């Protein structure tokens, strides 16, 4: 076998290995393949004098195979330069026994997850408690209320979201109307499309769509903003200056969303119904006039109110989870990503869970 890096000569009693050329990080993978094929049934004489260039990877490879060969047979190394010897000594000195990676048992990782969930839950309760204390303090001392920040967040989470909320609601309204139209047309009950669209949008879909879009849009932003501030120690700096982060960061966001979300829901209701109106016009030839007249008859105010009541609840859930997840960010950038994901997943899930809860309550109350 011959190559630019390794030759071997077969002799009766011994095998002569001759290393040459470059033994560097670039050539090591090829050399390793060659070394694997070296037979170890005889004594080996390893001549390294031909190596022109070497680095730590090359020497490590040499050390590894030297040890491997030594396990099977006698090895004699010849022709090394003082420099090679030095490098060899340095690397041997700094080599550690490799520790096998600890294997985690299934039960162990399950246990860890459960404990993690439990401590998340406990931390969230602590967070809620701190928020409540701060809220109480601000209610009793209104001059501490951060109006400027709150207005800023109403603008950021509310006004700036009008476009996307409008678009989403419009499309959902249209889809509902199209789907309903196909079914209702079978019975010739075309006009009932107004009931379907009106009630489902105001009572269920308006609040839900708005909350989900805002959870994705503002909930994640809250987590990322607060998380970044945690990493740069801005939050610690605030604390040392006597600026309570719950008052400066959490409360404005929660209050802002509690104000903004119902307004957005109101907007989504209107645009969603308009979407339904457009689709009904196209599909069932119900004019806008007919639609609005019918809407007056069937859409009781109670449906609208029942939908609106959900607004502040969803807002609180989204803002609280968003801020809480931000505070959970630990000192590495990866955790911002993890917490932001968790924030969106948690808040969307909770929004849907609370929506289900509202449905149960409304049904039980016969509303």
């Amino acid at each position: 076998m011959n190559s630019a890096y390794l030759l071997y000569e077969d002799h009766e009693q011994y095998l002569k290995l001759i290393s040459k050329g470059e033994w560097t990080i670039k050539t090591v993978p090829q050399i390793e393949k060659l070394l694997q094929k070296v037979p170890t049934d005889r004594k080996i004489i390893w001549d390294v004098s031909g190596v022109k260039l070497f680095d730590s990877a090359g020497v490590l490879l040499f050390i590894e195979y030297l040890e491997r060969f030594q396990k099977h047979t006698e090895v004699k190394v010849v022709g090394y330069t003082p420099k090679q010897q030095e490098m060899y000594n340095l690397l041997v000195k700094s080599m550690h026994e490799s520790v096998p990676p600890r294997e985690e048992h299934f039960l162990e990782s399950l246990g860890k997850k459960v404990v993690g969930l439990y401590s998340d839950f406990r931390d969230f309760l602590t967070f809620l408690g701190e928020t409540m204390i701060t809220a109480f303090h601000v209610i009793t001392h209104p001059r501490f209320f951060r109006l400027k920040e709150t207005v800023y967040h109403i603008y950021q989470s509310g006004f700036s979201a009008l476009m996307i909320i409008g678009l989403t609601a419009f499309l959902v309204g249209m889809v509902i109307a199209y789907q309903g139209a196909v079914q209702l047309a079978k019975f010739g009950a075309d006009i009932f499309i107004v009931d379907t669209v009106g009630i489902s949008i105001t009572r269920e879909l308006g609040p839900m769509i708005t909350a989900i879009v805002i959870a994705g849009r503002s909930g994640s932003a809250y987590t990322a903003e607060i998380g970044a501030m945690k990493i740069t120690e801005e939050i610690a700096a605030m604390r040392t200056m006597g600026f309570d982060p719950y008052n400066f960061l959490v409360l404005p966001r929660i209050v802002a969303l509690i104000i903004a979300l119902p307004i957005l829901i109101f907007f989504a209701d209107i645009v969603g119904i308009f979407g339904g109106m457009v689709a009904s016009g196209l599909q069932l030839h119900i004019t806008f006039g007919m639609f609005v007249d019918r809407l007056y008859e069937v859409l009781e105010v109670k449906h609208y109110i029942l939908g609106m009541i959900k607004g502040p609840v969803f807002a609180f859930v989204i803002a609280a989870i968003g801020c809480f997840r931000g505070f959970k960010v630990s000192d590495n950038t990866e955790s911002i990503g993890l917490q932001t994901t968790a924030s969106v997943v948690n808040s969307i899930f909770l929004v849907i869970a609370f929506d289900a809860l509202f449905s149960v309550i409304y049904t039980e109350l016969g509303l």
Partner: protein
Amino acid sequence: MSPKRVIEVKDVVTRFGERTIHDGVNLHVNEHEIYGILGESGSGKSVLMKEMIMLLRPTAGKITVLGYDVTDISYEEAQELRREWGVLFQFGALYSSLTVAENIELQLKEYTDLSKQLREELVRTKIAMVGLAPHVGALYPSELSGGMIKRAALARALAMDPKLLFLDEPTSGLDPVGARNFDKLIVELRELLGITVVMITHDLDSIFSIVDRMAVLADKHVVVEGDLKNVLQSTHPFVEAFFKNEYTQEKYLGKIKAENVQ
């Protein structure tokens, strides 16, 4: 009469889970002194400072700062105390959404009734005091170099003219000239405003030139506290390794001996 004690740390124990960081730490800081906290990486210097400024709570023990027991303090007292000190974080921790000037102005705005004009003047003075050019005030933290961040953060820490200044590695990451200027500035502030400075540092130049007294943290304890002479008498391995290696011997200790002889 012994000097007034600004900070007193008594038998402080700190544990994170099962890991003990401090196991009975004792030290005190006198008024008007520049006090150094030394120790190897991971010995719990930053944690100790965080406990002094109420960012962390010790597991056990007592810490008194400016007469308040920070391990048992009411909300109102804590808020009062927080206006008495300035803190310089290891990496500046400037508010990234505010300009340098706004960073410095923030506490003045929140806590005082100064007119806008006076506030701006104060901000300009602080910017000049730490050796920053006037135009830096309008920049955002992301537009600053490492050294400028340190200076801006110091200016912010000085905004309320605190009596007590906490500095976490103030000269790390500065060029040698900048670091010496920073040292000079700290001494000047002490002379001028009579403040007390607590600083974590590895900087031998600072330790030999401006620190009055210091504590060396090692093995979960303060292994030695006092002025340079006291500390040098210690035979603890960390002190030996830190102060009595060839490099320090040559560069600093030789000088000190020469001075003592004079």
